[in-house]
Structures are given as structure tokens and as C-alpha cells.
């Protein structure tokens, strides 16, 4: 304690309050995902819909004109028909996939956030652990699925595990970027009111990290979905990934594309959900 005075940081306010945001996040800077091109006018929305109509209608017409076989590419109308009429076949598998995604993600994301919060308080430990986290992110976790199935069987176990392994590090590395933001003046402000370390964490550090935590949660969820579907394709008799395999093997192309459509909608819902959460909890940053 004798040298406590040397540990004080020089009060430096080069960083403006709003600009204290670290934009140099490098490989993990996915903030483009949350920003988007801004509010659209009614005409732009009409244009977006028009493009969809032209592409879908064009596909319908072209497939008809060139007499493309259904096993090569089914018509959009056949896909929609299959989705509606065979939804009873797809539905249970959608629930399986959602169950794996939610369970794995809940485990991975909570560990990721807690680990990020703890590790950023210890710069030395963080420096040691960082490369391994990066290794977890850069290694496709799908590669572990055969091994996990060998050990855990063909049930939910290996899938949930691999979803957690894929989403956790993504959440962690982004959340850590958020927790690493230190705004000396804001922490000093809280301290001047007598705030404890816990209060500083709850009232300053967590809100300040929130935008990056939300970005991490979004990417983690999307990675989790990818991984869940991939794992289902490797083995086991259920889940949307497994249906893709089955429908492809049976040359049931309209059903195959109906599953792809369901997955696309799932992905979009994840994106929109986190976009709205970000709007509510992190809009102060823009």
C-alpha cells in the first residue's frame, strides 16, 4: 500500500466521453451487423419488396421456360406449398433444433459473459488466456462433433456441447472488448460518490460494455445456429440439419428448400431480435 500513489493514473481526458468507444476491435468488430444503413423511406421499402418479387417471380418463370427439373431447382411456389403442406413433418425437427440452440447458447453465452467480466479485471490472466480463446473461435467446432458423438451418443448431448463451444467464445471475446473499455472520468465520478468496486461494476462498467455484449450475443446466436444445423447433419436422426440430409437423399427438393427457408427465417429472427434489444439497451452509443 505504501506505493499506492504511484498506481493512480494520470487524469487524461484525450478521449471524449462519447468517443471512449474502442472502434479498433479488429477481427471481432462485427458492429456493422448492428448498425445498418439507417432508417428507410417508404419508397425504399417498396423497392426492397419489388426486388424480392422480381427475383421470386423471375425464378418461377425461368424454371418454367427452361423446363428445369424439380430435383435441380424446385419452383418457389412448390417450396412454399411444401412448407405449408409438410409443415407437420418439419415442425418437430424445428423444435429439436431450437432446443439444442437455446440450451447450448444459454450455457455458452452465460459462461462467456461471466468469463469476460472476470478476466478483464486481471490483465495478466487475460493476456495468457486470449490466444486460447482465439483458437476456440478460429477452429470450427463442428470438427469435434464426430468425437463428441463417439463419447456421448447421437442424442442432444454432443449438439448442445458444440453449440456452447461455438457461441461461448464469440460472446466472450466481444463482451471482453466491452468490459475493457475504461473511462477514467466516469469511474472517478462513481468513486467520488463513494462507490464500491461492485457498484462501479454494476453502474458504470456493465452499462458501458452493454453495446458490445449485445453484439457478441447476436454473433454467438448466429454461430450457434450454424453449428447446431451442422452437427445435426453429421449424425443423429432428428433436427433440421438431419431433415436436410434426409430430404436431399430422397430427392424431395421442395421439402429440402422449405427447411432452408425455415432456417433463413430463424436467422433473420435472431438478427431482428438482437437489433431491437440493441435499440433499447445500447442506443445511447450512436
Amino acid at each position, binding site marked *: 500500500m505504501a*506505493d499506492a500513489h504511484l498506481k493512480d493514473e494520470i*487524469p487524461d481526458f*484525450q478521449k471524449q466521453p462519447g468517443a471512449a468507444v474502442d472502434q479498433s476491435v479488429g477481427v471481432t468488430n462485427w458492429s456493422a451487423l448492428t448498425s445498418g444503413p439507417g432508417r428507410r423511406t417508404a419508397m425504399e421499402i417498396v423497392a426492397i419488396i419489388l426486388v424480392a418479387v422480381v427475383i421470386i417471380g423471375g425464378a418461377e418463370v425461368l424454371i418454367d421456360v427452361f423446363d428445369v427439373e424439380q430435383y435441380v431447382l424446385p419452383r418457389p411456389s412448390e417450396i412454399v406449398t411444401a412448407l405449408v403442406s409438410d409443415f407437420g413433418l418439419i415442425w418437430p425437427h424445428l423444435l429439436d433444433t431450437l432446443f439444442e440452440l437455446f440450451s447450448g447458447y444459454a450455457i455458452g453465452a452465460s459462461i462467456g459473459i461471466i468469463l469476460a467480466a472476470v478476466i478483464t479485471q486481471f490483465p495478466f490472466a487475460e493476456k495468457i488466456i486470449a490466444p486460447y480463446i482465439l483458437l476456440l473461435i478460429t477452429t470450427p467446432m463442428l470438427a469435434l462433433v464426430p468425437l463428441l458423438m463417439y463419447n456421448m451418443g447421437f442424442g442432444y448431448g454432443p449438439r448442445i456441447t458444440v453449440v456452447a463451444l461455438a457461441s461461448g467464445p464469440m460472446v466472450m471475446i466481444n463482451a471482453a472488448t466491452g468490459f475493457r473499455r475504461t473511462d477514467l472520468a466516469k469511474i472517478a465520478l462513481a468513486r467520488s460518490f463513494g462507490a464500491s468496486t461492485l457498484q462501479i461494476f454494476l453502474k458504470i462498467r456493465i452499462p458501458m460494455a452493454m453495446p458490445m455484449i449485445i453484439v457478441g450475443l447476436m454473433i454467438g446466436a448466429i454461430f450457434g445456429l450454424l453449428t447446431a444445423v451442422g452437427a445435426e447433419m453429421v449424425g443423429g436422426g432428428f433436427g433440421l440439419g438431419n431433415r436436410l440430409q434426409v430430404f436431399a437423399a430422397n430427392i424431395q427438393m421442395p421439402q429440402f428448400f422449405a427447411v432452408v427457408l425455415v432456417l433463413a427465417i430463424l436467422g433473420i429472427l435472431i438478427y431482428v431480435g438482437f437489433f431491437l434489444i440493441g435499440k433499447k439497451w445500447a442506443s445511447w452509443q450512436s
Partner: protein
Amino acid sequence: MGGNEAGRPKLAVEGATKFYDTKSGPLHALDNFSIDVRDGEFVCVVGPSGCGKTTLLWSMAGLHSLTSGQVLLDGEVVNGPHPQIGMVFQEANLLPWRSLIRNIHLPFEIKGKQPDANWITHLLERVGLGGFEHKYPRELSGGMQQRASIVRALSFNPSVLLMDEPFGALDAFTRDEMNMMVEQIWLETRKTIVFITHNIAEAVFLSDRIFVMSARPGRLARTFEVPYARPRTLDVMAERDFFEMVNEIKAEIHHGTPAAQTPAAGGQQTVRAHG
């Protein structure tokens, strides 16, 4: 007003010396700095950039520890943040994710106390922020943000207000307006105020006494008494002896500068901050 019991100063800095540990070795920020501030007095500390003004204020607020020397509040050593000390930071320092009123409630949340709603409403009306309670900082102008931060500092009714270049980022007109407002609030509340600035005219306009600091390491170079009667108006700033005092202080600061321009090479960039 003149002091409480036995003429003891409200706030005293005694032999404050401060070194920072930087990559290029220890940085000498404050050197044996001593001042006394009377109860209800308004003092300013002026000095060149990087002379340790902020270090001094943060030490007075108990946010920094001193290498040697001490800060006394009502005769007791300040060795951590103190409930009788309110702090106004540079650039308002509001939390952007909180509405104005929730920013003002922050000290109460931290202290676990019920906010004094009447007093806060009075203060908000007083600084012209009535009706803006639910706005977010980004929706307020720089001047309004700084007024909100003054309300925040006064909200828990501390007896001492430490202000760290609060108006440095504001334009000249807004700054004049804010200075008038601060004087009025001081006349109403009679807080003991220590105000840091590098704007000498602002210091002369506001203070009872001005402490001029030398360039780093910060030492007390000279003390000026400001004689003008209260309340002051902006007309004071147009008077001849006002100019003379401003020029004299300026000369004092420049006079001290050359000698201190020879620190170790690396130290120079690290302390580009305002004072």
C-alpha cells in the same frame, strides 16, 4: 463568513507532493503545494497546461493519494472520497445511458439514500433545466449538460464543491452565462468552492482568491486577492484594473514557464491533458 472554529480553514492542502509512475520513470506532478481555503470562500487555481491542477483537485477529492503531504477537511485528513465533497468534472461527465434525472440520482443510488426530490427540483429550476428531466445527455447542449452535472454535484448538498475546468469545452458566450450562474449559486448556497481553470478572466471574475501554479511540477507561485464586490456583473470584465490583474497573472504564469520546460523526453506526451 471567515472560517469556522478558531479560524481553522475549511479545506487545507499541506505540502502536497505527487509522483506518477510512467513508462519513462516517475513523473513529478505536484511539488510541496500548500493552500488554505476558508469556509464559504470561492477560490480558483490557475496555471499552465499540465501543471498538475487536476492532480491537485483529484487529490483534494480523495480520488488520488499523495506521495507526501495531506489534505484536511475541517481539520480531518481526507484519504478517500468524502460525502462533504462534491465534484464537477471536465466535459460534464454525464452517463450517456441515463436520463438527466437518473444521472442526478446516481449519487443517491450509490450512497443508498432517498433522493431529496424538492431540493433537486429546486436546483433544476434554478439552473433552467426544469422540464428536461427525462432527456438524455446527447439531447442536451454542452452548457445544459454541464448545468446538469452541477446539479448532480449539489444534489446531496456537500459543503465543498471542487470544479475541474468545468467550462473549458464551452463557447465564450455560454461560458460567461455559466460563470454568472455559478456566482449566483455560490451566493445562495455559500459552498466552499475550489475552481480550476486555465481561463484567467474567468478566474478573476469568479474568485475571492486566485492561486497561481507554476509549470510542472506544480508549485504555488503566487496568490492574488480579488477585490470586486459581489454580486459581480459581466461589466466588471470591462474595467481597467480587471485587465491589469488578468495581465499580471498572465505574466506570472509565463514568467514561470521556461524553467520547467526541461522534463525527461518521454514524459512530455503522456501529460498532454488539461491540467
